[in-house]
């Protein structure tokens, strides 16, 4: 193991790297120990929960190689593809949600599913308006296949995605009667953020996007509805079309900074400093906005392993529901898991608005917290049968050092440790999952 105990005195107790150093590679033994706690941190942030085998693999590989391996993932198993295909054939919302949960829970590439979930929250589209589950599933597939590639390609694909065009009223955006909905969200939520464009830019971009319609569930470039005149966007003029809007937005320095900061807040911790945002923007730009490359850099950086980042993110319902099962190497009815996530405030394919889900403590309210406590009880067989959880309790009973270390490899504060008394594996697992500490990943 790297970072052996004798080097411990060299370990920085609480590294608060400067913005310039923050993205430098994490040096095991110098910036902190490379131990089970660090490896578990990467595993639960990049994916869902902390399956012991995944933690073992990461620990053996070291931070950089582990990040690369996690992001690269494996090709989908035939089971996963079958789940998605079946959901598409059934065309029902609960089957679609269950198929996505299946891929998070049992798929070969949890990091891809986590990133797809990030993009689902960023390009938040809801079946409530789209009213077509197949279009929604196709959009998620775009997040899977393009999510780690160049952001400009993803943005273009999303801006021409049939579900998105239904969601943001593409068909009513016509020459002479522009509908600004898509243009506004491309700038405000999808690429730049408020303050980095003008109302004029939106009006002109809406004109450039006229004619991007949906017909027979496919993207349709309706040339008759397209405004062919000159437009001025960000001070540049031309007979712009939709591709130009995407290219111009993705090319702005503000875009790299905006998306990099969103990734950081999703994966590392809230509120990066303005200096760090700028550094990340540069770094993301330098990678050609290749999200996967940027994430590998982030996942092997000093700031990622800093104490500030540890357990600093409120578990999303996906983290809590899917992660709990994965940490226990358990399975359950994926439909029931999807329903439980909805009760916790995250209904897949139905985000509350185009802004997606709010992160952080806003996940937790009395009813959603109760839903989490109840879910923990169901996983441990203390309440309800609906979840159909299958947990290898016998194997867990024999395991040393035990379940508590699976959930909290970094240890627990004294008060929590006292509450988490000894008992059978079910009791210990229930206590671990119901501790307030478990709401943080």
């Amino acid at each position, binding site marked *: 193991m790297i970072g052996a105990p004798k080097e411990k005195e060299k370990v920085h107790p609480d590294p608060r790297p400067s913005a310039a150093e923050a993205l430098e590679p994490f040096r095991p033994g110098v910036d902190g120990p490379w131990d089970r706690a660090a490896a578990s941190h990467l595993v639960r942030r990049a994916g869902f929960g902390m399956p012991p085998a995944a933690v073992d693999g990461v620990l053996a590989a070291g931070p950089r190689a582990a990040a690369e391996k996690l992001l690269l993932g494996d090709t989908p198993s035939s089971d996963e593809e079958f789940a998605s295909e079946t959901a598409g054939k059934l065309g029902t919302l609960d089957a679609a949600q269950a198929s996505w949960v299946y891929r998070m829970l049992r798929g070969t590439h949890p990091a891809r599913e986590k990133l797809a979930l990030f993009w689902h929250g960023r390009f938040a589209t809801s079946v409530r308006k789209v*009213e077509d589950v197949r279009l929604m599933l196709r959009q998620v597939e775009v997040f899977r296949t393009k999510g780690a590639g160049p952001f400009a390609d993803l943005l273009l694909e999303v801006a021409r995605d049939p579900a998105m065009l239904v969601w943001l009223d593409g068909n009513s955006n016509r020459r002479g009667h522009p509908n600004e909905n898509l243009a506004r969200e491309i700038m405000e939520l999808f690429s730049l953020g408020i303050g980095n464009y003008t109302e004029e830019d939106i009006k002109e971009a809406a004109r450039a996007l006229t004619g991007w319609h949906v017909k027979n569930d496919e993207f349709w470039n309706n040339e008759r509805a397209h405004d062919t005149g000159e437009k001025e966007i960000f001070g540049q003029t031309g007979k712009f079309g939709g591709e130009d809007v995407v290219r111009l937005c993705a090319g702005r320095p503000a875009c790299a900074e905006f998306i990099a900061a969103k990734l950081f807040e999703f994966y590392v911790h809230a509120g990066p400093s303005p200096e760090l945002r700028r550094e990340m923007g540069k770094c993301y730009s330098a990678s050609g906005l290749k999200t996967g490359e940027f994430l590998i850099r982030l996942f092997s950086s000093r700031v990622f392993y800093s104490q500030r980042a540890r357990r600093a993110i409120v578990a999303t319902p996906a983290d809590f529901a899917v992660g709990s099962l994965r940490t226990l190497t358990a399975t359950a009815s994926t439909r029931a898991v999807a329903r439980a996530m909805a009760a916790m405030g995250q209904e897949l394919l139905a985000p509350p608005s185009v802004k997606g889900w709010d992160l952080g403590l806003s996940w937790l309210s009395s009813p959603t*917290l*109760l839903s989490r406590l109840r879910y923990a009880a169901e996983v441990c067989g203390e309440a309800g049968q609906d979840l159909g959880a299958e947990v290898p309790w016998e194997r867990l009973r024999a395991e040393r050092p035990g379940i508590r270390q699976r959930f909290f490899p970094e240890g627990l504060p004294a008060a929590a440790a006292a509450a988490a008394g000894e008992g059978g594996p079910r009791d210990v697992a*229930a206590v671990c999952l119901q501790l307030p500490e478990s709401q943080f990943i």
Partner: protein
Amino acid sequence: MQLSRREFIGFTAGLTLTPVPSVLLRAAERLAAGPEEGVLVVLQLSGGNDGLNTVIPFRDPEYQRLRPSLAVRDGDLSLNDAGNASSGAADRPGAADLCYHPRMKALHELYRDGAVAIVQGVGYPNPSRSHFRSMDIWHTARPDREDVATGWLGGIVARHRGRLNALDVGDERLPLALQGEVQVPTLQNLDWVDQLSKPKGREMLQRLQRLNSGERVGEVEKVRALAQATLVDLEKVMELRGRPVPVDYPQSHLADKLKWIGQLIGGGFASRIYYLTHGGFDTHAQQKDAHALLVGQASEALAAFYRHLDALGAARRATVLVFSEFGRRVRENGSLGTDHGVAAPVFLVSKSLRGGLYGAHPSLTDLDEGDLKFHTDFRRIYATVLEDVLRIESAPILSGTYEKLPMFERRARV
């Protein structure tokens, strides 16, 4: 963490994730629902209830012709006898030609006692036949806008913050009707409350409380405090749930929820708005038995709820409003069911209202693309309950002024 055990308002307060100043709590307690204050219970029939087979023009040959397999032929539960309606036939045109669905005997009895008002032909301009869109319209009371994130009831809670609380007795996510600046609590996991009341559940509850004792730091402490407050509130709910119920409720999920609301109202719970749903009304195929079961369940549960409140002396305070997002197509389809329609009746149940029919049954020959035409905007009903049940101004909530229906006016004769 001093949260009011007495009035359970902490359930709302806890949602802010910050300890509630005790001054606010005391103020809220003082203003908790008193015996004089009206309580509104909104029951949503999800999926589009077939209004035409709920309040039935059974003598209309057109109805019999267009509903060959679904038509109800006997009119035993006639609408011609609304006990206390004062102004006679003018209020209930054609009542003799109308009847309740034969499975709605329980509600029909209340109707004969004068405790049920039926508003016929309810809808809104440019009707949407999409479940989601139409439901959103009923929830926001804004047919003109698609981007409204505040529901009509959520708007009330925000506007009368701390003084007028709501409770969602739902199974799923918070309905749009209750959404707004103040997060309305949802009491889901009803069965879990029951499990926690049992010995093994008590053990779990004690453990949860133990887990949440001992202060932490930072955000973990906020979560711990929220969990602690939630558990205290949960105990209050369990305590009220243990209260004896003086009437028999039928066996159904809906009846369970109404029974609980009855216990909460009887226990002086601080909420004055309760919201619950009864689903499964989207009867595109094989409608007959499914629909009969659903309206029968609703009828029996509502009647039991009314008698429960009556036994507690609260039947005048509480008003139930029963709506669905739309009615169904007049002509039955080829699958022995009906497709999405437009206008439908809305029911109100209370001892304080003037029972009977409001407005005429929509014509079955003058249709709009095969659907009944509406004549009464649903916002008139909202205005009525806002002004006359909750006793608040309706115009700011509904973004306009709507004429009330005269169902809560003092009776001409006693």
